[in-house]
């Protein structure tokens, strides 16, 4: 039978494989057949996809299959899968083969997930467009002259085009939610510490979360339920007991809109679409309340202090000694200088330099410590707001997908495209991007996304509102 992987959900695939309508091998073939090489989705397609699928079929035969058995997934190429090339989109890791599985991969493998390949990303997840990869630009399937968003652009396009049923990305400042919005799929970021970071290439360690993409909210929730949980390999992982205790009853019926923030510098059509979404939620029985997050406007500046600071320390490990690329010079110091100078791309070099400046003597207090203090202030603003509302909504991105090359020469403009998503990582709370409609640009329909933000450890409310929003859409 013909399998339409662009429409098929995880639950449908599972029940059809249980019934024997098709096998995991058929499903893997269907995904592989859908890969459009023009879009440059994958850095590496795995050579054992069918082997993995055969194992999944054995699990079905032995009646050991779970909901995720045989489900083809694409994995952002900065998440370690043992024995697979994990490049992080960088030349410096061009030939690096992971020596262990990330915790999330270990969990997915246990369910019999079939990994299709490692997807393209902005180098070290630094970027909002998947243009900054050492392995070329990934294109938006809705308009190939436009970016898919980033940094997890390859994963978003893989889901949107049916090259897999679901995917993993990493979200440090919006790197799952923004490409989800640009590609018309669902993408979430969980509360910081709920999903283990062990085995994800570190960027901003106090911001990073491994996060799922899916076509529908249920698919994203299924993946999230599998990969979450305390992990002793991640020292910032939340104890399961703390998470359970946070699940107190709420009514989940009041949604806050930070009007003052949303209306600044946002594309007219995006704003109109956002207010349509507000109306849709109102019609679905939610009470809409205007809220004030007085320090939210500083979130982007805070982010662009904390993130490069953490980047500059995390990326110091790429020294050409233990793993990765080595460019030799006359002596050890020259080895370092040349290895980093040639191995890292431009944006990565820029952020390491910026982070080094921010953390250098004399500027540490003015930038880094001030940003940490402000981070707490913004967090308190959100805590205050969540006393009266159950969720906050914003557009996911201030514009639809932009043109390839449009912002690549202006780093600050690129940074501004993350305005709605970065604050969530700064604060550490969960948020999801769900498709909210389309806007026409150059005769092409481009998807938009609605971001739904909920209190710490309340992914449940986020999923509930998302299902309601999408379920009752026209």
């Amino acid at each position, binding site marked *: 039978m013909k399998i339409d992987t662009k429409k098929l959900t995880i639950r449908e695939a599972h029940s059809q494989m249980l019934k024997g309508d098709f096998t995991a091998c058929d499903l893997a073939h269907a995904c592989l057949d859908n890969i459009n090489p023009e879009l440059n989705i994958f850095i590496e397609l795995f050579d054992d996809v069918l082997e993995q699928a055969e194992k999944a079929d054995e699990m079905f035969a032995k009646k050991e299959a779970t909901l995720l058995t045989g489900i083809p997934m694409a994995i952002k190429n900065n998440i370690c899968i043992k024995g697979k090339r994990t490049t992080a989109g960088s030349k410096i890791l061009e030939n*690096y*083969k992971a*020596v262990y599985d990330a915790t999330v991969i270990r969990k997915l493998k246990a369910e019999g997930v079939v990994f299709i390949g490692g997807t393209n990303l902005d180098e070290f997840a630094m970027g909002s467009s998947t243009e900054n990869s050492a392995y070329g630009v990934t294109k938006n399937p809705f308009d190939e002259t436009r970016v898919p968003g980033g940094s997890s652009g390859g994963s978003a396009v893989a889901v949107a085009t049916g090259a897999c049923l679901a995917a993993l990305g990493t979200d440090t400042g919006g790197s799952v939610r923004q490409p989800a919005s640009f590609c018309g799929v669902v993408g979430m970021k969980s509360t910081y510490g709920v999903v283990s970071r062990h085995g994800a290439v570190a960027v901003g360690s*106090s911001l990073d979360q491994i996060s799922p993409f899916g076509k529908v909210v249920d698919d994203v929730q299924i993946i999230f339920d599998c990969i979450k949980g305390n992990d*002793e390999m991640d*020292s*910032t992982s939340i104890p399961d007991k703390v998470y359970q205790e946070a699940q107190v009853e709420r009514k989940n019926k009041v949604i806050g809109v930070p009007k003052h923030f949303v209306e600044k510098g946002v594309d007219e059509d995006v704003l109109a679409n956002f207010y349509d979404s507000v109306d849709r939620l109102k019609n679905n029985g939610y009470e809409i309340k205007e809220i004030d997050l007085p*320090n939210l406007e*500083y979130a982007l*500046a*805070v982010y*662009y*202090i904390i993130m490069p600071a953490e980047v*500059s320390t995390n990326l*110091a490990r790429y*020294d*050409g*000694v*233990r*793993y*990765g*690329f*080595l460019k030799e010079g006359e*002596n*050890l*110091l020259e*080895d*370092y*200088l*040349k290895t*980093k*100078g*040639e191995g*890292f791309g*431009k944006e990565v*070099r*820029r952020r*390491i*330099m*910026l982070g*080094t*400046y921010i953390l*250098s003597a004399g500027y540490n207090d*003015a*930038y880094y*410590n*001030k*940003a*940490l*203090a*402000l*981070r*707490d*202030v913004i*967090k308190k603003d959100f805590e205050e707001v969540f006393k009266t509302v159950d969720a906050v909504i914003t557009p996911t991105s201030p514009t639809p997908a932009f043109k390839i090359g449009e912002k690549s020469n202006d*780093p*600050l403009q690129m*940074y501004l495209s993350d305005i709605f998503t970065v604050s969530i990582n700064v604060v550490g709370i969960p948020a999801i991007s769900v498709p909210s409609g389309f806007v026409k640009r150059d005769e092409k329909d481009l998807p938009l996304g609605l971001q739904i933000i909920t209190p710490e450890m309340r992914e449940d409310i986020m999923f509930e509102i998302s299902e309601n929003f999408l379920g009752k859409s026209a």
Partner: protein
Amino acid sequence: MEIKEIENLASLCRIDLSEDEKLELLDEMGSILSFIDQVQTVKLDDKKDVVGSLRNVMREDKNPHTEGKYTEAILEEAPKKEGGYFKVKNIL
């Protein structure tokens, strides 16, 4: 910021930069720094103006694995190695 500062930063982070890139970075760092400088305009209470609430989490380094269990796999990824060790140029 001056070009000397860019050069100093580059040497601190051990990155070899071309002359063109130094100039480019001088310009870009200027515009990024003037953007993030807005954090300086926020007045915080004295109490709040301290390091944030995030702290390091430590654990006991217990149940170590058998010595050498992962050596081969890890060294497999090293650019240069010799007899179970990473190989680097003279340090002194």
